[in-house]
């Protein structure tokens, strides 16, 4: 019985069923809450949620902005800039650490310490060091994901068999070519994996920072409307966040499958 495979149709049906059950449970919960208190906004009904969604996507009466567009733009720019810096820095540092023992000895101790420091706990430090503009969000995300990322890259580099590197040098590869054409390519799928894992933390750091200092963005809107108990605005925002994270993850998986057919099929 244990690990006995089930037909693919079944697993699809069960997956759909679990989502439906979740939705039904929510509907029940909100109906019950509204039975107890018809004016409730904390567990909004579907029609309340619909109104919330409308509020998010239609231009706001006071400032004429579409909240979702304005917040999405701000948050995405911060997230992507931060991810870009963090990933680029992490890859470069990881490659250097994996290739050159001097840099390894220099950087591994501080990075392994920093990797254990939750950046949300250091929010105030970031305010102090880089202010509260876009740089702060970018720095926070970048420093948040860089230690883990560079360590993973570094370990990945170390795992590349020495024979492959020796072989490349017998084929006439320069140092740069070994790093770029051999090591970087060999660990590329691992880099995608660790980037996928970094998106979650990056969003945590960003939302936490936006909750404190943002005047636009997902974190700002969620905190504001939590305080105002407009859960019909908060829940759609959470759903958008989840959908966005899922989509990004899926895109990266596709990229990995497309760019590294040898790795994905190698896993099987």
């Amino acid at each position, binding site marked *: 019985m244990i690990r006995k495979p089930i037909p693919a149709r079944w697993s699809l049906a069960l997956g759909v069923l679990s989502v439906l059950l979740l939705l039904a449970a929510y509907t029940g919960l909100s109906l019950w809450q509204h039975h107890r*208190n018809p*004016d*409730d*906004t*904390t567990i909004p009904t579907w029609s309340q949620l619909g109104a919330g969604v409308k509020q998010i996507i239609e231009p706001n009466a*006071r400032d004429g902005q579409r909240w979702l567009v304005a917040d999405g733009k701000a948050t995405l720019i911060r997230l992507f800039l931060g991810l870009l810096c963090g990933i680029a820095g992490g890859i470069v540092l990881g490659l250097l650490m994996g290739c050159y023992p001097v840099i390894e000895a220099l950087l591994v101790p501080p990075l392994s310490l920093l990797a254990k420091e939750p950046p949300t706990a250091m929010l*105030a430090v970031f*305010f*102090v060091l880089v*202010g*509260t*503009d876009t740089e702060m969000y970018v720095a926070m995300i970048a420093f948040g994901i860089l230690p883990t990322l560079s360590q993973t890259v570094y370990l990945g580099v170390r795992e590349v068999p020495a024979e492959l590197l020796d072989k490349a040098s017998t084929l006439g590869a320069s140092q740069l070519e070994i790093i770029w054409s051999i090591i970087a390519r060999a660990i590329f799928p691992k880099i995608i994996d660790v980037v996928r894992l970094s998106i979650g933390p990056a969003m945590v750091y960003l939302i936490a920072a936006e*909750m*404190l*200092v*943002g*005047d636009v963005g997902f974190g*700002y809107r969620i*905190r*504001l409307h*939590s*305080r*105002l*108990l407009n859960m019909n605005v908060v829940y759609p925002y959470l759903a958008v966040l989840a959908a966005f994270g899922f989509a990004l993850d899926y895109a990266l998986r596709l990229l990995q499958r497309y760019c590294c057919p040898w790795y994905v099929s190698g896993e099987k």
Partner: protein
Amino acid sequence: MKRHCWEIALIAAIALLATLGLGEAFGAAAPTPSFSLAWSEYPSWSTFGVAHEIKLINGKKGALGPIEKKWGVDIELKEAEYDPCLVMYGSGKCDAACITNMDALNPSLTRPSVAILPNSTSFGADALIVTKDITDIKQLRGKKVYGLAKTVSEYCFVRNLELLGENEKDYVFTNMDPAAAALAMQQKQSGFDAIIVWNPFVLETLNRRKDVRVLFDSTSIPGEIIDMVVVAQASLDQPGGKAFALAVIDTYYAINQRLADPKTADETLIALGEKFSHLDLQSMRKVVKQTRFYSTPEEGLKILTSPSTQEIMKKVSAFCVSHEIVPKAPTIGFGDKTAAPNAAFRLDPTYIEEYLKQEKSK
């Protein structure tokens, strides 16, 4: 044998859980009704935390301090940041909360609420701090003013603009957590020429950076920002609800008496300030001055019954509607339930009156 071990462990675990569950059930059946009060660190609200520390009440559920025994009710204290307090109260996770008159309006739309006890009013505790080169409010036109949006900070800012005859549209109120805004100003970060924050951030910023000053503060709008204890109507209607209200009132005035008594004043003040901020005694005296306590039942009654409070509530409600803090204006009532049966938010002096009557009859 191994399998039997498992079974025995399983049965033991179930038995243990059952015992605990039954104990809980019996515990809940105990005669003392229990009500929860959410509070955050603020001079006049920390009184409840101090009352727990000096054992006037016991804030843990199921444990009673002398005041709780006196009124026959169990007060459960839930300490949280201000935001979570609002959310907890609004979503019905606590019976009462320490919030401002302005922030009470939104939850009352879905959860009819009663203000039973005004604690204090901001009298300088909310302030617009600017750099030295700014001497006139007009210099701030088009510049960013940082503060927490849709809170008393924004209210204080907008009301002062009104009093100065300025148009709100000429100014850029920018959302930022007051702690972060104060930190940015203390660090002289560029662009942070004006922040509007509350205490302890006002005093901290003034203490740490000598080249800034207060352009205006809440002294120009006395009594408009009221810190109060708000209880859900449904909780008051439960058995023991009234006793809970009276016990909360009793606790508050008991601490105020200690503040008035020269023997215990400093020690209580320090206790109040301990978690609130690392301000010294001198600064704490200032804090208490800027957060003007309604320290006697008489003062409290005056606020709850005064016609000017009714005017203020109208003004605050209009502000909340125009700034989208509430989707619609709640009906605001004054007096007991019979006087305003349909009010979403009611300022009710009868609990303090009842407390006074019972105190005098002793």
